[in-house]
């Protein structure tokens, strides 16, 4: 039983790390998220 729980916890921790890492990459590195309401912004950088 304890082994099963440890395995489950490991899977969850890996999933959490992967999820956070992907979000990080998306936000800071790839920055490919679609942007809306750009009218109010004067100078989008190229």
């Amino acid at each position, binding site marked *: 039983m304890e082994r099963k729980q440890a395995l489950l916890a490991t*899977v969850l921790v890996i999933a959490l790390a992967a999820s956070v890492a992907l979000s990080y990459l998306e936000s*800071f590195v790839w920055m*490919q998220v*679609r*942007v809306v309401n750009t009218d*109010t912004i004067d100078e989008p950088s190229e």
Partner: protein
Amino acid sequence: MTMTLAQFGTLLCGTEAPTLFGAFDLSTPPALLFYSYVPIALVTLAMGLFAHRSARSRESAWLLAVAVFFFGWVADILVQWVASYHTLLLFAWQLNAVFEVGLFLSAIAFVAVFTRERALPDWGTYLLAAVSLATLAVVPTGLNIESYDVGNCQGVVGPLWPTLYALEPAAVVIMGYIGYRAWRKELDVQKRLRILVGTIGAVLALGTFWFSNYYGELMQTYDFNLWGPIGMVIFQLLLTYSIVRFHEFNTKVFGAQALVATLVVLIGSELFFVHSATNQILVSITLALSIVFGGLLERSVRAEVRLRERLQEQEKILEVANAQQVSLLHFISHEVKGSLNKAQGVFAGMVEGDYRQLPEAVSTIAKGALGEVGKGITMVMDLLAASDLKKGTMSFDKKEFDCTVAVRQAVDNARLVGKVKGLHVEFVTPPTEAIRITADEAKLMRHVFRNLLDNAVRYTPSGFVRASLVRAGAIVRFTVEDSGVGITPEDKQKLFTEGGHGKDSIKVNVDSTGFGLFIAKQVVDAHGGRIWAESDGPGKGSRFVVELPAA
């Protein structure tokens, strides 16, 4: 053309200046944010850590999980308010789902283990894990944050969020239901109150949390959802109450102090926001009341905790002393038993003529000594048995046997001793057929049947001793009745306790160790039976009844 964040990544959000750590601007959010979020988050986390450090139980671990997710959520929202760069803002918006789902799942788990006092069932664990995994899979995708509103510096939420807002009330209802079921099943009044307090705390906390978020989102009034975390204070307040009231988690005075401090800071901070004179008066009164009652609460908690700590210390000291005494007694008894056995061997040899024919006088002395040593061995054996029973190291070799034979043997034995005193010892209504029980025959014979009959003979100066054995359904009843000295009501109270002599019994039986009936009761208990004594009072005889389950 679809624009991506890459084109805005290096831009600051609005007019914000990244004055703090080059990434945050503290001047934008309303001041209430710092008053409501920061202390609540810190207090929740501190209490979670403290509770878990003190208790290290399933409950405290889940409470800590609730606190950690809540703290993460609050920190995330703070970043959303104060971050200066779009990239950091998007990251915070994306991660919000992790904390929000984690908070609700761990709160459900907490309520389940707190109210049921058991671990989560397997299916519950798997369900929690499955929901967590599904959420984590969705977090980095457009289902969570579909796009980014660069003009308003905020994420545009995807379909995950309406789903969460719809499921969260269901989670609150589930918590309530789990608590309600545990409450209905529980019979103990104290525990029912504890369940009630914990459940109501969790339901109110997460209910308020959900409502303020949902309403804020719906009305696009984000100032409103600043009040949401206040629900967590209710949760902490009620849990602290249950901690103090039911000695949960043993968080000591810390919890009460943190609670009072938070309340005072929160209520005090309201003075900066209310402008009408009525409100200011109301807030001031509330603040004054909080300070007074908070102080009183803290004082009473401190006193109670001190008292409890002292009691616990004393208990530990007593436990150690008791354990030492038991092992010392065991050791001494063992040593004495060895010497007595040797002496018994020597006297038996003398009596039986192993050392050639002895003069008459010496032979008489040797016989007397043999009898005395025999008594000494019996006493030491009783002490050892009692100490084994207390330490839990006595083992029982249970087998099925006919106890009619054992009882008849014990009665015959008692008859021989009784004859010397002129007592009439009889086995009334001896059963015609075998009465079988599953038990340790030797221990039952020695510590129960013989012990009760020996006692009856010993404490009966004249008259009769009657033993009977009957089977009544699934029960075998052994009774010893005598016309002896009887038992006073006070003696009856401590008859089966360790060393529990009757007040005057030592006058009648100088060899009594006071362990005989204690051992008899322990042995009967170990066989799933009952033993008790009846007597109409001193001089009116007594009746000992033993009931054992039939085989």
